[in-house]
């Protein structure tokens, strides 16, 4: 995480960590952008074909407003449910990354616990991830209700 043996404090410490953080973050980002972009694309294609987009254009709105105000809000709805699934992925998915970039995260500790057959930690961490998944689903349902008035419980 930091260059070996440095003992700097404050600002240069942060700078150093940031330098080391760049590549792992890049990898993690690339991991999920693939499926998300495809998901957004099908969502947007679906919304663009709807009648209310044609109504928006018939009102004489500029194409920019039609896309970013009318189409985007509707296309974002299914994406919200996806956010819920990303939550556990953030912890679970980083395991291999931490091994490759030697980043002392919880995934790394989990892997070591496996080699050391530290069953209590292994089960504890798995349950932690399961709880995170349920929490993620709950959050996305609530968020979905906030974003989509049709679901909002009056």
């Amino acid at each position, binding site marked *: 995480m930091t260059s070996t043996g440095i003992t700097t404090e404050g600002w240069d410490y942060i700078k150093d960590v940031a330098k080391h953080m760049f590549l792992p973050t890049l990898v993690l980002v690339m991991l999920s952008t693939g499926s998300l972009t495809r998901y957004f694309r099908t969502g947007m294609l679906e919304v663009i074909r*709807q*009648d*209310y987009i*044609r*109504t*928006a*254009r*018939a*009102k*004489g*709105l*500029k*194409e920019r407003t039609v896309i970013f105000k*009318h189409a985007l*809000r*509707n296309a974002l*709805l299914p994406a919200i449910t996806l956010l819920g699934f990303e939550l556990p992925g953030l912890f679970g998915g980083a395991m291999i990354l931490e091994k490759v970039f030697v980043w002392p995260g919880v995934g790394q500790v989990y892997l070591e616990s496996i080699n050391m057959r530290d069953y209590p930690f292994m089960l504890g961490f798995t349950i932690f991830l399961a709880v995170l998944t349920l929490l993620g689903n709950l959050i996305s349902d609530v968020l979905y209700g906030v*974003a*989509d*008035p*049709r679901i909002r419980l009056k």
Partner: protein
Amino acid sequence: MAKDLVEFKNLETHFHTSAGIVKAVDDVSFTIREGETLCVVGESGCGKSVTAMSLMRLVEMPPGRHAGGEILFEGKDLLKLSKREMSRIRGNEIAMIFQEPMSSLNPVLTIGEQITEPLALHLLLDRKAAKKRAIELITLVGIPRAEEIFHSYPHELSGGMRQRIMIAIALSCDPKLLIADEPTTALDVTIQAQILDLMRDIKRKLNTSIMLITHDLGVVAEMADFVVVMYAGKVIEEAPVLEIFKDPQHPYTKGLLKAKPIINEKKERLYSIPGQVPNPVDLGDNCHFHDRCEFCMDICRTKLPPLRVHGDHNHKTACWLYEEEGKAQ
């Protein structure tokens, strides 16, 4: 005589599909006068909706293509205007409502937001003035509790109410021309009567000219001043409404009038036009109705009949029965 508001001149709109070029609108010409309700009538696939969409320049251009002709709106050819000029006209001087009220409003925005949008854009009203104008519009189209409706969402309204909101949105900037693409087809008959009554009322109050697109001859009889009949992308007959019902000339128009069962007119057997609408791809140089027409002559299969005046000066028909070469057969 009222001034010409819109003039279609040999409009051609084609679609490039995998099966070939579909001439959805094939050399269509007619004019809409101010304060007049013109009905474009025809069955599905005859190109009536594409004609309206071409006027609003809403035809999606990758598959669709403007292949010729002009659309003059107050003398200006809309097809030559830049995107910005056109968006200043759309929703401001020409407005449009559609067939499916259930899906024509954005489900995640309130009714108020969707009505005030064109007001802010075209009339540059601030939020307060736009809201006041929107409340007036909602009451104008006959919806009670306008304030409450302003803040509600589309899914809370019935089909009839949503169509009224669509009309309110269309009328927001006091347009000169209102295009209605089968506005009542998806509604129940008692609700349809309310919407048609509302449209007649608006025409009287605001003197807006209306281009009504429908396949229901009953709606035509009730609403139209002038009627244009379309078949397979072409105009086959046009005349004032009384004329077209009293003395239809084209066999297809006659067939349509006889095919519809009418209340309190007991018919032993309905007249039915045999066959079905021809495949729109490469229809060729002939009268497109020839394979379904009982008066079909050789010339009908080989040459396209011109749309010309026969008898009454504003009653035009495209049929060889009334042409000299036709009579000579």
